């Protein structure tokens, strides 16, 4: 674990996202200190159901990210369908309708790379279940900036290609199950 207290968490997930996130997010306590920014691949015409879905199950605040809103601790922000989500250096969120990256909008890499710039080593990044390569390049950028990299373990994952691609590109990443990820987040959030 790095010596720098983490300030934020970014998560990327695709196929199998709901199962993994349903373990992690509801486990976080009401006084969870860190903000979480989350990209889940969804068909573009799907209206934003994720935030609502998790709101009901979670003790932390869960919302769909809005353009230029300040990042608050203890809040999970989902990227809206069909927009990229980025974090600015001043810890505000930005949306963008740039072209899809690796067929994805929102793109995990886009979120991760901007978060690496904004938080440097004080960032935890997690690549969950998925059947593509998104997030691998971004995870490496975060690890290179001194952040903490985590990928979901293959066992029990709905789709393993995405966490495996991320692990291959970023060998220093820890491999954890969703339960272990939840426990890890709770532990580091407790640190001052």
């Amino acid at each position, binding site marked *: 674990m790095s010596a720098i207290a983490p300030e934020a968490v970014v998560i990327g997930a695709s196929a199998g996202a709901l199962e993994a996130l349903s373990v992690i997010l509801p486990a976080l306590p009401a006084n969870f200190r860190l903000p979480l920014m989350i990209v889940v691949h969804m068909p573009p015409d799907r209206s934003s159901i994720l935030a609502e879905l998790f709101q009901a199950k979670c003790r932390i605040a869960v919302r769909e990210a809005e353009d230029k809103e300040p990042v608050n601790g203890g809040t999970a922000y989902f990227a809206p369908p069909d927009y990229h989500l*980025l974090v600015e*250096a001043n810890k*505000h969120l930005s*949306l963008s309708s740039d072209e899809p990256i690796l067929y994805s909008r929102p793109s995990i890499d886009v979120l991760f790379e901007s978060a690496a710039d904004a938080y440097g080593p004080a960032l935890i990044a997690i690549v969950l279940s998925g059947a593509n390569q998104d997030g691998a390049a971004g995870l490496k950028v975060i690890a290179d900036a001194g952040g903490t990299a985590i990928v979901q373990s293959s066992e029990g994952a709905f789709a393993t290609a995405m966490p495996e691609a991320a692990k291959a590109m970023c060998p220093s990443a820890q491999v954890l199950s969703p339960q272990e990820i939840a426990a890890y987040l709770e532990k580091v959030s407790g640190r001052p």
Partner: protein
Amino acid sequence: MTDVDMPEKIEDIEIRLLLEALYSRYHYDFRNYAMASVKRRLRQAREQLGFETLSALQESLLHDPNMFPRLLGYLTVQVSEMFRDPAYFRAIREKVVPHLRTYPSLKVWVAGCSAGEELYSLVILFREEGLEQRTLFYATDINQEALAQAEAGIFGLDRLQLFTENHRKSGGKSSLSDYYSAAYGRASFDKTLRQNVLFSDHSLVTDAVFGEMHLISCRNVMIYFDRDLQNRALGLFKDSLARKGFLGLGAKESLRFSNQAAAFSDFVREEKIYQRLAA
């Protein structure tokens, strides 16, 4: 965390200087755009244009006038669709048009029109509703290449399936194929659609009010701005709108965080359509 104590990264210094150079040399002002996106695009430009560093790109930008349009292409990515977010155009048709009908003549401004997708959508909608003949459309952007494309009205035929579907979902009363002819993989839109349109180079960052509008549609442009710049653009829209004029924004844009919010009321909240309050 105390950002002020952290030394500025070399890349951030380079970005700041490059944007300054771009402004001093070409009067294009990206200094207050949302930086996370600008950074991404500059990295992309540096890589694809084959420069070792952003400083090297800056040198070329200052000394080689051909570099400027190429870089501008990176900084103003053109992503658009006809009748993008069909529900927005349906709301314009069903809620805004009935008000517009009461005016003998109309002015409509499509700000950040890209290659014309949003403009043609509105012109076709106005034609279907019988308002086109009394309307003057202004289509503006800072990317001349995009403006030239908009003026030509030619789109890849492979995009027309989506445009047609969007048009239908927006409540279109005609068939989109009535408005273009297809040849060699391209759809060429009828020039009569442009007879009431003025295309011009206009920046929401550095240029001023140029007319009194009844409807301004500015979608997915202001998300690329920081908050101060958003406020500037919204101030421009406020000053450009007739009393009770309408302002339509992108699906994820709103007046919520703006200091101009008091000048507008929600008109169709879900579609981000606002109405200018009487001053």
